[in-house]
């Protein structure tokens, strides 16, 4: 029997149709995952299923009943939603957070009953968070925090759980941790699970059924084996993918890897410039030390990727060498010059940085944002030189933003926004480019597009690229040199073939993996062996 169903569901923001006449049934006790490119309407669909958005037409039926005819409490007792990037109040502990999940079951102004407390304990236990119950949520690691949120959803004791991108910002080990929990909840507790994931390979590893969406419609629907195919993925994302089938290397699921449009994969070995030379660096925030006695060289004129688990100090290292963050001690040379000796403006002409978590002021258009990147080249008199104009056009064109140039940045989708920020960093036209997780929020084809631009900037223009990357297989493909960090230290460094090996993966992430060869490039392809 279908547990949750939609009938000809349509959702629109103003006049922009996001989900277009969708009818689907979700069977009780299954894991269903919705995948699709940026802006395909997958999160919107999930939020409509959870009654957060009102549909423009059609209905959502929970066990045959229209959810909009049910009371809020009744809905909250039957289904729970974990939103993307929920914010936790300051200094709340894990058990307090989890107890909030009991809200739909509590009477007005009543303290937690024995039943509530038992539910909290059970939720903590299921999410494997009992030992951390008194820890403050904002001090947890990314994976732990995500598990705490899932525990809150568990305490709600709903038969149906919905998760919107539960693995964003998590490293590969934490991803596995969360996926294993999802699997356990389904198999052992019999919960029905509907999730949105952007990572196809995760979806393939855990789901019973995958729904592939594009432009508000279903493109494919079926088991991972039916959906993760070359044909479906190329209609879905518009990019050719290689699909690796399960054999003795891969106990479960299918694995896909998109093809690039550039000839990446052929490593350069010799640095063309000195690059960064860091010695005895200490990084951190105030009294909190992240890295100590860090010494490393980042080759100039090559693409270097920094990888490592959440909170290993990779972004901090990038920010410190880019002088966005003060160091506590040590020396940082860029092309043989100490970076602290340069003036702000001179350094800004040498290196550009794409960071995370920037602010977006009201009514700022894409073109304004990209133009702001030209600031280091402007003077009181020269505010808009021909060179500025040429570079802005070039960056807009490269990042496929020409049609969006007059649109306010605030109204762009996450993926488009990330492209606009990337355009702003390349418009600076600096010999060195630092990129902190440039592929966040991007779907696979947009990731490939962006990294292909990075590749061209390096191979055609000789720029030094240093990027923190989340996806190890993209790092293996696009980097000439990989630095793997753990706990503020360098765990391994070298060519992709030297770093992306099972021993290093075990040492850095604590995961079992098998390494195949990327059919497109001949570079290593890491496939985690999920203990499921």
């Amino acid at each position, binding site marked *: 029997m279908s547990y949750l169903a939609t009938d000809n569901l349509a959702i629109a923001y103003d006049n922009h149709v996001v989900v277009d006449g969708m009818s689907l049934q979700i069977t009780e006790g299954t894991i269903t995952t919705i995948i699709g490119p940026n802006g395909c309407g997958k999160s919107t669909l999930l939020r409509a299923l959870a009654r957060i958005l009102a549909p423009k037409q059609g209905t959502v039926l929970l066990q045959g009943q229209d959810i909009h005819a049910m009371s809020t409490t009744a809905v909250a007792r039957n289904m729970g939603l974990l939103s993307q990037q929920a914010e936790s109040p300051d200094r709340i502990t894990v058990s307090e957070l989890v107890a909030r999940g009991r809200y739909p079951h509590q009477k007005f102004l009543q303290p937690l009953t024995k039943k509530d407390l038992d539910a909290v304990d059970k939720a903590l236990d299921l999410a494997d968070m009992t030992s951390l119950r008194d820890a403050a949520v904002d001090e947890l690691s990314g994976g732990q925090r995500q598990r705490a949120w899932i525990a809150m959803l568990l305490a709600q004791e709903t038969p149906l759980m919905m998760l919107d991108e539960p693995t964003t910002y998590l490293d590969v080990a934490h991803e596995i941790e969360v996926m294993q929990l999802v699997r356990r909840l389904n198999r052992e507790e019999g919960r029905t699970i509907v999730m949105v994931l952007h990572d196809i390979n995760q979806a393939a590893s855990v789901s019973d059924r995958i729904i592939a969406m594009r432009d508000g419609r279903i493109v494919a629907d079926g088991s991972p084996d039916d959906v993760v195919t070359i044909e479906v993925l190329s209609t879905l994302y518009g990019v050719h993918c290689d699909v690796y089938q399960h054999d003795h290397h891969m106990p479960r699921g299918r694995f896909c890897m998109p093809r690039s449009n550039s000839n990446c994969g052929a490593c350069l070995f010799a640095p063309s410039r000195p690059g960064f030379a860091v010695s005895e660096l200490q990084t951190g925030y*105030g009294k909190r030390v992240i890295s100590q006695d860090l010494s490393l060289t980042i080759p100039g004129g090559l693409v270097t990727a920094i990888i490592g688990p959440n909170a290993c100090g990779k972004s901090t290292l990038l920010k410190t060498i880019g002088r*966005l963050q003060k160091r506590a001690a040590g020396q940082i040379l860029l092309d043989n010059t100490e970076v602290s000796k340069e003036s702000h403006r001179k350094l800004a002409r040498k290196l550009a940085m794409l960071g995370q978590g920037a602010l977006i*002021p009201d009514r700022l258009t894409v073109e304004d944002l990209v133009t702001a990147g030209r*600031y280091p080249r402007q003077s009181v008199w020269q505010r808009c030189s021909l060179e500025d104009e040429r570079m802005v056009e070039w960056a807009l064109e490269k990042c496929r933003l020409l049609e969006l140039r007059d649109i306010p940045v605030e109204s762009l989708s996450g993926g488009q926004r990330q492209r606009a920020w990337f355009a702003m960093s390349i418009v600076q036209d600096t010999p060195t480019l630092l990129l902190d997780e440039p592929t966040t929020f991007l779907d696979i084809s947009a990731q490939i597009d962006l990294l292909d631009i990075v590749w061209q900037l390096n191979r055609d223009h000789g720029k030094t690229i240093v990027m923190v990357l989340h996806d190890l297989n993209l790092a293996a493909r696009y980097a000439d040199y990989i630095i793997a960090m753990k706990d503020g230290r360098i765990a391994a460094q070298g060519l992709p073939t030297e770093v992306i090996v099972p021993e290093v993966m075990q040492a850095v992430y604590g995961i079992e993996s098998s390494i195949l060869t990327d059919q497109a490039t001949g570079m290593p392809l890491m496939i985690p062996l999920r203990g499921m």
Partner: protein
Amino acid sequence: MTSFRQLSETRTFRTSWFSHRINLKVMMLIALAIAILILLMLWAITLGAVDLSIREVWNATWGDGDRKTLLVVRTLRWPRIATAVVIGMALAISGMLFQSIARNPLVSPDIIGINSGATVVAVAWLVIVRNTSQLPLAAFLGAILTAAIIYLLSWRNGASPDRMILVGIGVASMTQAVTALILVRFPLEQIRPAVVWTMGSIYGSTWRDVVITSLVVLVSLPFAILLMQPLRAMSLGDNVTRSLGIPLEMTRLGVILIGCALAAVSVAFAGPIGFVALMVPHMARMIAGPQSGGVLVFSGILGGIILLLSDTLALHFLPVVLPVGVVTGAIGAPYFLFLLYRSNSRM
């Protein structure tokens, strides 16, 4: 939104050593606002006990007319009108600078305590020292001193704008308490001039006041306009600012210095006038678009218009003559609410 984009067409001017992008809409708005301001000033001078025509005012301004008219126009009315305009400009520009630096639309020099710092010194000066001649100087020093205290107290590895707002609100409450204490402790006839001063007024302004305030505004304005360029980039956050090679602390300090000087000079010569510094920058942005050097100038002129209108209303069109500070809110706030309503309904 579309109409806004169409109007805000930019034109680029470029020579071998010079290139600038000019927003035509903003330039037209500035020209329009200046025209309105000049007409408003001439009209305001015609009003009063001695009835004059615009032509008489115009001639008298350039030294043509009988002695009585010359006295009324050049010695009595012009200084007051000019002071109103210049103080309005100073307040609005200062407000926009503070709002840009704090990335917070609810900030203005009066909210972060600069006005109340000036007030406590001025009130003490009037009530305890009982000296009116050096009053502007005392108030100016009070404002500058308070600003310095706020800046130092909020310094911890750099002055964070958020901490400055909180510290400023704390300092404001403290100084207000001291002001209240002085007013309660002294006899009524002694505190009367102080109470009037705290409402904000430009009674009896002289040419000396006009010269000093205009000098401060004229010196600050070019710097403020130049600082709007890095301020635009700074609105993207501290990390982006640093990676664009903008010296964050220096720029911040520069903006605070100019903003404080403008706020201090206006509170010194006109007392604490509320509303203008907080609301006029919003009005300017709602009419002219996102912050830029041009919008800053527009905001200044709009501040002049609003304060002059308020003063004229306070002086001539109300059953009792009120200090201008009481009226700014009364005429500015409804217009502000109207703009807010319109911009909401457009979204």
